[in-house]
């Protein structure tokens, strides 16, 4: 976009920015903003976009082997949505002055991160259901408050995404309902999958509040509306009755209702595992990045051909 320019002194700009945040109004792309606010958003939105793109792989694994045409069509639509969510988010990140190509490079060179949850493998078809129920459920807890994030393009992308995530979670839960009403083998598959995904799902909310250095600033900027621990608690409280309805056990001996707090007490995730997976030592980190890199490189000739065609016809 082109525009005319008009110089305003920086202290005034900072005051206008802060007043906008304090009034709970949205910051838009061409508004002045502090460098740290811009940097924080680029990091968060890019990481979120990368998560959607990498997130296509664990479930994409089952598209060819879905047990019916109905399940296959649903799974295809879901994975296509994940691609779409990645695109909305990359577009939002680009309004902050980064380049799409640059973001892709940073993902495949592992200089930007994505959610640790996608570094776990999906060896069982029940994982498709459990990802929809728990992983997408946790994502929804994280994402709903982001619809009110102070940065306009990010908030608007999140509104679109949240509308679509609801289908993701429900299809997963419905799939699990079908399996728990099936054979004993199918019921066991669901329990085995829940046992593997429960703790990594709790880790999706990030470290405990005391170990989350960015939370306070992000909350002051209205990027984040709740702390990691608040959201984790909300997720546990939502999941318990859902697990009961499925007849599965959540693998936490410390999980119980606390009438005083009117909330569930629960155990501590293994944070050393979380740190290791973030650092690249999860079960599928190498595979996920290699696949994304290969897809990008194999698509190069398509991008070039389309560009050549466009130049020829312009």
């Amino acid at each position, binding site marked *: 976009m082109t*525009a005319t320019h008009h110089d305003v002194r920086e202290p005034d700009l900072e005051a206008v920015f802060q007043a906008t945040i304090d009034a709970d109004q949205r910051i838009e792309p061409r508004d*002045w903003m502090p460098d740290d606010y811009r940097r924080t958003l680029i990091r968060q939105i890019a990481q979120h976009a990368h998560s959607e793109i990498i997130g296509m792989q664990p479930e994409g694994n089952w598209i060819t082997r879905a047990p019916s045409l109905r399940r296959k069509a649903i799974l295809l639509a879901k994975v296509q949505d994940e691609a779409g969510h990645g695109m909305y988010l990359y577009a939002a990140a680009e309004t902050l002055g980064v380049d799409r190509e640059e973001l892709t490079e940073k993902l495949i060179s592992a200089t930007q991160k994505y959610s640790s949850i996608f570094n776990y493998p999906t060896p069982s078809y029940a994982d498709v259901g459990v990802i929809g129920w728990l992983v997408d459920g946790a994502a929804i807890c994280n994402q709903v408050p982001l619809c009110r994030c102070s940065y306009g393009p990010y908030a608007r992308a999140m509104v679109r995404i949240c509308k679509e995530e609801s289908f993701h979670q429900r299809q997963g839960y419905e799939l699990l309902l079908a399996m728990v009403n099936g054979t004993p083998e199918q019921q066991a598959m669901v329990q085995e999958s829940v046992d593997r995904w429960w703790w990594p799902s709790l880790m999706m909310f990030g470290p405990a509040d005391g170990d989350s250095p960015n939370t306070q600033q992000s909350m002051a900027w209205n990027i984040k509306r709740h702390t990691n621990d608040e959201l984790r608690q909300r997720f546990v409280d939502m999941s318990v009755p859902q697990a009961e309805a499925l007849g599965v056990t959540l693998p936490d001996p410390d999980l119980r209702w606390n009438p005083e707090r009117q909330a569930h007490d629960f155990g501590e995730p293994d944070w050393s595992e979380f740190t290791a997976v973030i650092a690249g030592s999860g079960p599928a980190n190498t595979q996920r990045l290699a696949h994304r890199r290969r897809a990008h490189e194999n698509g190069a000739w398509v991008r070039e051909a389309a560009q050549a065609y466009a130049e020829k016809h312009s």
Partner: protein
Amino acid sequence: MSERKSWPLYEVFVRGKRGLNHVHVGSLHAADDEMALHNARDLYTRRNEGVSIWVVKAEAITASSPSEKDPFFAPSGDKVYRHPTFYAIPEEVPHL
């Protein structure tokens, strides 16, 4: 391939249904206009969100500057007589 510059950015506008304006919904990259239209359909109307799509290269849009917001819109700020509520009409007069 990396020296080839990336596909241009397009802004996307969707008409939700007949009778409504096209509304900005986001942006995307495409090699040319036709591809932009197809990508916009796949990206922004997967659930019947639109009956018509406009795409325009982002670089073709001229925008007012946010830092000039106040002076730019100032001319309309003090013209209260442009609003119907400026005019006092006796309550018993109907249909006004």
